[in-house]
């Protein structure tokens, strides 16, 4: 067993590792996890903004109502959860600094916005060059964009803030957070806003990792088109009350959501099958492996049951044991990144 180091080292008297931060930079939320004594603290910010009329009066009202805003030159933007409420009120769409898991190429305010949101959750480093692992998506199988610019920009920004940044694949972070008992062997699946990320890990080493550029936003857009609603409203309904196990007495929107959830799950499983078949030398797995489901799009009641049903029908070419939800589906990526950061910090 490792001996606890003194308080000058990276472990304190109780053997706790309190340095290192994990940052989950997702299309919908930015989250940061760090340890404080016996607790893990999670700071979170919704990754959305909405422009409102810029007057001193509006600013005062927003200040008094504790609505978060950002002013850039002549524009005033409501940010975070309130942006979603404002968008629904005005029957418009929110704007996002990230699209499909990476810095949005079409959003002109993307960079300063994402920097502001990251800074608000991560704060200052607690020691010089504190290690911060940040989540990045896998290379998309079904889209023509490259993730290098996104990774280098976030990395460069965290360095500017005084951190030693390191990227970690989003789905791999799920494995690090949830599969310690299985020696970090299994499949992590992150159903985020812009993408679904997949990683098959063996003894903590990723065998393959990829993403598909269809996920929660894609479901919202398809449903919105099918029932003539705005994506923001569909998203609000999906997040507030969708129950995929419900049979009968469902609204038109719920019914369309159910159809597109089925489509997305099948699409992801088919892509995993294809990647396993393509992988030339898979490590020998002695026992069935677990699948961990996580991310905001996996939150509706009945999601894991639906996933299991479709998996039974489509079958993967490797033995699968349990299929379960992550203990905290919205925090698990940040926590996994924190595990990686703490391990690195304790090695220094």
């Amino acid at each position: 067993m490792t001996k606890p180091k003194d308080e000058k080292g990276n472990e304190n008297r109780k053997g706790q590792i309190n340095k290192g931060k994990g940052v989950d930079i997702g299309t919908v939320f930015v989250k940061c996890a760090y340890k404080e004594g016996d607790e893990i603290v999670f700071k979170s910010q919704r990754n959305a903004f909405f422009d409102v009329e810029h007057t001193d009066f509006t600013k005062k009202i927003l200040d008094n109502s504790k609505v978060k805003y950002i002013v850039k030159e002549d524009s005033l933007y409501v940010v975070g959860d309130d942006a979603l409420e404002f968008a629904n009120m005005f029957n418009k769409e929110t704007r996002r600094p990230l699209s499909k898991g990476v810095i949005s190429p079409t959003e002109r305010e993307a960079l300063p916005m994402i920097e502001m949101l990251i800074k608000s959750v991560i704060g200052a480093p607690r020691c010089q060059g504190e290690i911060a692992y940040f989540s990045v998506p896998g290379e998309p199988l079904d889209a023509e964009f490259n993730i290098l610019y996104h990774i280098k920009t976030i990395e460069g920004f965290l360095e500017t803030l005084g951190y030693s940044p390191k990227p970690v694949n989003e789905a791999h972070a799920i494995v690090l957070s949830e599969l310690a008992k299985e020696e970090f062997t299994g499949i992590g699946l992150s159903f985020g806003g812009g993408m679904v990320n997949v990683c098959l890990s063996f003894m903590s080493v990723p065998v393959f990792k990829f993403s598909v550029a269809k996920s929660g936003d894609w479901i919202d857009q398809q449903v919105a088109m099918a029932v003539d609603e705005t994506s923001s409203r569909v998203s609000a309904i999906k997040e507030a009350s969708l129950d995929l196990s419900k049979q009968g007495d469902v609204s038109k929107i719920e019914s369309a959501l159910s159809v597109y959830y089925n489509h997305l799950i099948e699409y992801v499983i088919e892509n995993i099958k294809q990647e396993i078949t393509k992988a030339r030398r898979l490590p020998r797995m002695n026992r069935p492996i677990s699948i961990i489901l996580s991310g905001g799009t996996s939150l509706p009641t009945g999601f894991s049951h639906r996933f299991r049903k479709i998996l039974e029908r489509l079958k993967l070419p490797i033995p699968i044991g349990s299929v379960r939800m992550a203990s905290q589906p919205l925090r698990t990526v940040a926590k996994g990144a924190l595990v990686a950061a703490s391990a690195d910090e304790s090695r220094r």
Partner: protein
Amino acid sequence: MTLSGTEAEIVNCVAVVKQATKDRIGREVGFSSEYIGFLCRILVRKGYLLFSQGRYSLAEAGIKALPSEESGRRDREFIKEVAGELAREIRGEMKRTARGLRRPVSAGDMKKETMMGSTEEPIKICTDYDYPVEDESLALESNIEKIGTQVGKENSGDMDRTVRLLKTIHERGRKK
């Protein structure tokens, strides 16, 4: 150290505007603010510009690089000379092409140049370089800090054990 055309234009623009955001420089110079931001970062590194509170201003090297009236006159004459030479070259090139003298590139040459169809190892591109990114959010005004972010806490449970197990597995892997 010489400046490229656009870099020189940026330095001139900042000299006129005094303190400018990259959006303003982009509008003046006629390029996207992302591209201007990229060039400005290089100019800050080279010591031509200073960056503070989201705005660029001239640094010492930038002031020295500003064209004097005399050098401007000399530059105009030089440009005239080069443009004349270029026009003569293009005219000659066009004549040669019209007479069918241009040799088509063979498939073999193309393979040599582009590595297409080569059985050699694929090219590996190093991505382990520093890409400095400025904190552009410094130019923004916000009440986020005042209101605060959403904070949640959970017991760390056996996270320390997870971290140690991960370390052990990595060390075991390294020894193998």
